[in-house]
């Protein structure tokens, strides 16, 4: 057991089979799939250096140089051989001085996992730019809850680092996008909850082109492309600049004023609000780390992504309904949130959900969500649909009975806390896998989104998100291979593993010696829960176990 733990501390990886079966038939006999559980942001051993340069990549398969690469110091032009595709690569000129005695850190055998600090050219402008938090607050809650929520948010505002950009959207029947940068009056852009707004409409309607004409061609993307800093700064302001305005808005924040008939649910347009939030971030800060933090007080009933109608006579779908497929809103909502998650992934933004609801709690609606390091959080009514967006963007889900509950308050605080116990939130990662020719990648089960990078390494059988060798992890907590660190630096973490394989008869002992029981349990759990969500016959999944 201990050896597995050592390996994990070095590489943040655990595998059920640390000795691999050599043939397909053997692999099939193993039942537990050959897999690796990777925690991308797990702290590295303290001695591991941070390399202040970009990594060398194989010019054939783009894999990163590692201690497993064979380096030919003898030839005049020093050459390294890619451990995956065996391609011979020349070292660039600044590596000329290396020798067996003078190895770069990435070739040290103990640094199979190492971080590079990279700054891609187009990222330069962003260097130093800070994280963005866009609060999306549900106002369809009773006064008491709203009070709790307000005080929690006010408290959080005090904790946000000063250079973080902050935005605020409140919603109920309508979506209110608050313009924080307007001094004379509190100013709110009001969007209809029932109608989805496209990004172009948003650009047009929120007056992004009044001061300067709209570029006739090209994509509008933040200050770099087409927008003035001024127009962006109306909605997203450094915490230090908007603290006062935000405080007064939150203090005067009222319950959604539209009357709710006694036989109806409040009109809550969660979908529209989230979609607007995504558009706003996509317009203002595409590609840089940003989190949409949604505070929800109940099921969405209005607009796209509604999960139930407003009439109270219609119950909220239960797990059983989902199984029976008697869920009128479910598929539409899921489709909507899938599109939303795609957009968020594309923009590199995270969706976090803090859901607190007193009514309509239904134990069957709980389901589990995995986060990077195995913390299991419960999610609630309405999250079944939302989940896809949260999961793919690597967001957090916090569920509590009330905004006054300590679970909510503590969780929220932890998100912003700095120090040893912080979640170490990072964002905007890309996760790539390269492997030896004999192994193919079936897929990933985890909080990430496929980047659709197909190649010969992709297996035909797909598990989770497959058909790719690269994934995006928009939000990470102590998690990835290529990510934006909280300090704003871009880092690349390369982990290279090598495991021996055995073939032929009598391999069983060998295989068993390399079996990691805990890892296997985790892998199976994930696979099963994944199947339960995706396949209608959950009974089948149980049987499989």
């Amino acid at each position, binding site marked *: 057991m201990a050896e597995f733990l050592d390996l994990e501390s070095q590489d943040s990886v655990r595998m059920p089979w640390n000795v691999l079966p050599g043939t397909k038939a053997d692999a099939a006999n193993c039942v537990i799939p050959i897999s690796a559980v990777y925690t991308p942001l797990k702290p590295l051993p303290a001695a591991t250096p941070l390399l202040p340069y970009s990594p060398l990549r194989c010019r054939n398969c783009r894999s990163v140089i590692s201690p497993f690469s064979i380096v030919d110091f003898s030839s005049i032009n020093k050459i390294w051989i890619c451990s995956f595709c065996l391609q011979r690569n020349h070292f660039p000129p600044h590596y000329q001085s290396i020798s067996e005695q003078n190895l770069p850190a990435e070739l040290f055998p103990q640094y199979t996992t190492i971080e590079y600090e990279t700054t891609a050219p187009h990222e330069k402008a962003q260097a130093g730019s800070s994280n963005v938090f866009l609060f999306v607050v549900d106002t369809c809650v009773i006064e008491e809850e709203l009070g709790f929520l307000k005080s929690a948010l006010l408290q959080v505002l005090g904790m946000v680092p000063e250079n973080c950009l902050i935005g605020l959207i409140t919603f109920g029947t309508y979506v209110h996008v608050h313009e924080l940068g307007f001094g*004379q*009056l*509190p100013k709110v852009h009001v969007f209809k909850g029932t109608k989805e*707004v496209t990004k172009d409409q948003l650009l047009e309607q929120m*007056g992004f082109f*009044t001061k300067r004409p709209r570029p006739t061609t090209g994509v509008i993307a933040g200050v770099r492309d087409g927008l003035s800093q001024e127009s962006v700064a109306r909605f997203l302001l450094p915490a230090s600049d908007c603290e006062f305005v935000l405080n007064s808005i939150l203090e005067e924040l009222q319950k959604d004023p539209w009357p709710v008939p006694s036989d109806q649910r409040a009109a809550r347009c969660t979908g529209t609000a989230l979609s607007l939030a995504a558009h706003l971030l996509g317009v203002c800060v595409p590609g840089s780390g940003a989190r949409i933090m949604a505070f929800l007080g109940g099921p969405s009933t209005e607009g796209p992504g509604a999960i139930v109608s407003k009439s109270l006579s219609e119950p909220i779908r239960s797990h059983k309904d989902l199984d029976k497929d008697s869920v009128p809103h479910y598929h539409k909502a899921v489709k909507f949130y899938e599109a939303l998650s795609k957009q968020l992934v594309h923009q590199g933004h995270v969706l976090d959900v803090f859901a607190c609801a007193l009514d309509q709690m239904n134990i069957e609606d709980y389901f589990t969500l995995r986060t990077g390091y195995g913390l299991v959080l419960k999610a609630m009514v309405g999250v079944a649909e939302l989940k896809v967006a949260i999961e793919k963007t690597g967001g957090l889900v916090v569920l509590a009975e009330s905004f006054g509950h300590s679970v909510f308050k503590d969780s929220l605080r932890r998100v912003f806390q700095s120090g040893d116990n912080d979640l170490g939130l990072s964002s905007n990662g890309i996760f790539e896998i390269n492997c030896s020719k004999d192994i193919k990648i079936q897929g990933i089960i985890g909080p990430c989104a496929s980047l659709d990078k197909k190649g010969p390494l992709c297996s035909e059988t797909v598990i989770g998100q497959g058909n790719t060798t690269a994934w995006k992890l928009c939000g990470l907590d102590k998690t990835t291979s290529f990510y934006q660190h909280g300090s704003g630096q871009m880092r690349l973490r390369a982990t290279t593993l090598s495991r021996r394989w055995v073939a032929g008869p009598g391999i069983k002992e060998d295989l068993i010696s390399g079996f990691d029981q805990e890892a296997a349990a985790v892998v199976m759990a994930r696979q099963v829960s994944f199947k339960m969500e995706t396949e209608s016959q959950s009974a089948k999944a149980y049987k499989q176990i």
Partner: protein
Amino acid sequence: MPPSNPAQTTLPPNMVPARPTGPPPGSRPPPFASRPPPPGALPSPVAGTAAPPNSAAGPRPGPFSSSPLTSGPSAPPQMSSHGPVSNGPPAFAPGMAQSGPRFPPAMGGMPRPSVGPPQSPPMLSSGPSSQPLQVRPSFGSPPAGVSSSIGQPAPPFSTPSQAPPFSAPSQAPPFSASPQNMPPPPGSSPFSPPVPGVLHSSGSPFGMQTWPPQQQQQQVAPPPPIPGAMQKPQMFGMPPGQPPLPNQSMSLGQTGQSKIDPNQIPRLSTSSSVILHETRHDNQANPPPPATSDYIVKDTGNCSPRYIRCTINQIPCTVDLLSTSAMQLALLVQPLALPHPSEEPIQVVDFGESGPVRCSRCKGYINPFMKFIDQGRRFICNFCGFTDETPRDYHCNLGPDGRRRDADERPELCRGTVEFIASKEYMVRDPMPAVFFFLIDVSMNAIQTGATAAACSAISQVISDLPEGPRTMVGIATFDSTIHFYNLKRALQQPLMLIVPDVQDVYTPLESDVIVQLAECRQHLEILLESIPTMFQNNRIADSAFGAAVKAAFLAMKNTGGKLLVFQSVLPSTGIGSLSAREAEGRSNISAGEKEAHKLLQPVDKTLKTMAIEFAEYQVCVDLFITTQTYVDIASLSVVPKTTGGQVYYYYPFSALSDSAKLYNDLRWNVMRPQGFEAVMRVRCSQGIQVQEYSGNFCKRIPTDVDLPAIDCDKTIMVSLKHDDKLQEGSECAFQCALLYTTVYGQRRIRVSTLSLPCTNMLSNLFRSADLDTQFACILKQAANEIPSGPLAQVRDQATNACINILYSYRKFCATVSSSGQLILPEALKLLPLYTLALLKSNGLRTDGRIDDRSFWMNYISPLPTPLVIPLVYPRMIAIHELDEKELELDDSIIPTSIPLSSEHISDDGIYLLENGQDCLIYVGTSVQQNVLQQLFGISSVEEISNQLEIVQEGRFIRDDVFLLHGRRQDT
């Protein structure tokens, strides 16, 4: 046409428009007319119109009198012998034709003292008008005035260059009083014939006695005074020295003599004494005094003429008789008209839960003409003739005279107008609160021209004039390419701005807090109005989403209804109901533009109309204040106010300097004036007559009723009537207007006005009892209604024909055979030709007007009350240099009597104010005394007036004055 003809639009050199805007044209000494398009300022009728009968005797050519020269009589002589044909006008021809040639010498010798300085350009904009708009074939003549007008110094108020069919009326002294036998005692009646020489027979002018045609022969035309010298260019056709024809009071000379005493020209009587009018006398309807006169009504059974006026005060028994007369039968209904301060207030009657007594068949309301029979147990409806049981608790015995004994105690049985308190059955919901929602354009143009600031300041000032009490609610929103609402709730530290960005599919952002009680948000409102202009100071959004903003505001008001006051500055260019600059498109494509010119006066599509109907359904009334410097397509925009019972105000070209005060004044009156909400109106008529059509600013969902989201004291509805049966001679025909409305203080009321008029079989009675002002108002309103639907020439023809046909009918059937050269006018309608001519020169009936000006003109007329109709085409002129002297004498009547629009009444050292109920002009004579100038304007010489600063001062002066006039208009 003579190219040198001054345009109608010409202003006298020293006329100072009341609303100076731009800098005065530097090159011109006279300070007037700084506003670019003066054509709109005043309709031409100023030109060459008649002087009052009592005016000074001597022909004094003055700046105002020269018009006839240019518009001169034009019929060729060969037409002279024509008998009257259907269109009549040839009767004029001989005189005109013959007088024509005489003009040149006359002009030559004519002193023209008051014409502006010779060096000053005679006209401001004569261009378009030099083209003949049309030459009516019936008058058929090349304008003979050509020769006479060439080389003339431009008359200050020039006439239209096109030859008007009648030529200028002022030159037609032969319009003498008609050969009626009943001219009123001189001086006492507004109907008094202007011609001193007319033989008066006895009888009250308003009397009902019949008028045997033979009596005409007793009429003797006044001996026309023959001016010795040819000073008077506008005379024509009076045979000098020739004895008048026996049966014509006035004639057009056939002998080629063209001298006529201007004193004999029919003029608008401007008696300043107040007339006491009893609506019924000896159980007979009393014909009302002229609408423009100052009168006090005593309601003795019929309603006051302020509420209902009929075009003819006796009702023709048959449709044939009516069509023979060529007059129209119509009512002008102004249910909430302002009473004279000395009149008794309308009595309010409460029938309790059961509501007012009504006929069970036609639902007519109880009125003094319902006949109680059978000891009062039953009553006969004076509309449908049905016999109803008297409700038990309403029963009362009859007296010996057949009237109920309590008739004099019960207002509904002895007054023409009463107000019933509406019972529950008249309410579909609780009476609505008084909601005022202000919607302000803050697009770039509006901000930069100062329109936004002017609107905000005006609103801020009128807040205190809104009705007091908890029922008054206000809301405010601004818009450019998006719509900005404001949450005014007092709990908030400051107003919260809520932006509705989607202008294709609008919504109201809040259910309640956008419209709040005035008392609750006064402070927020003040802060907000103060900060709006600065808040949008740097707004670069040129687009304006008018339609969407109005719709959004409507949605916010939908629950209550109310008044939506919109301040718009540019052409709506985005969102629902956006419009295009189709005027420019029309200009660029001239051939199509000519043919389709009237299409530009129609709404471009149905979008706004559909919206407006929905507004009306939810009792939202839209008033539109257009403060613009460009084309805004009023034709399309105006559909909204027109359909919702609102009105259009037009400030063009907007100048923050001079228009702000007017905007404030208009807005103030708009919110202050007596008004009602969620109103429904219906007019009922006695059997034999029915309502054909309503016309005015309202929404019509079912043919019998008129829906008025709001109605105020200035709104008039024209009700045209038709026969569906014969009426009995000697009987009376009754009309009843019932208006169910909610007062600003939340009471539901039914105002019922009943007018009962005698029926007659005599054509002459019809002419005698014709109501000039109402007749003309109908002609005017019909013309305005027709303009968008046909070529202009056709509309002009229709208006002219309406007048001609009446005169022709009179001549043919009521006057004895007379020489074809004589013009015979019915006494009651003697000014109809004058007004008709003036009408043809109005903005709306000219091709050279801007499309928006014409659209506005049409819209202005649509709800126009009768007393304002006449000044619109024939403005009032007041000598203001005499003002302060009189002020010392009388405190209460500061305004001197108006003087005729004729040059002989203008003197060189005078200052004159010309006012048409909408705009003012000030004419400053060239040799005005310094002290007068000093007193009025604070300047020492005329030249200084051109100074911008002085214009501002003037503006202030005029404003005071206009306000007085306005006040008086309300009284009248």
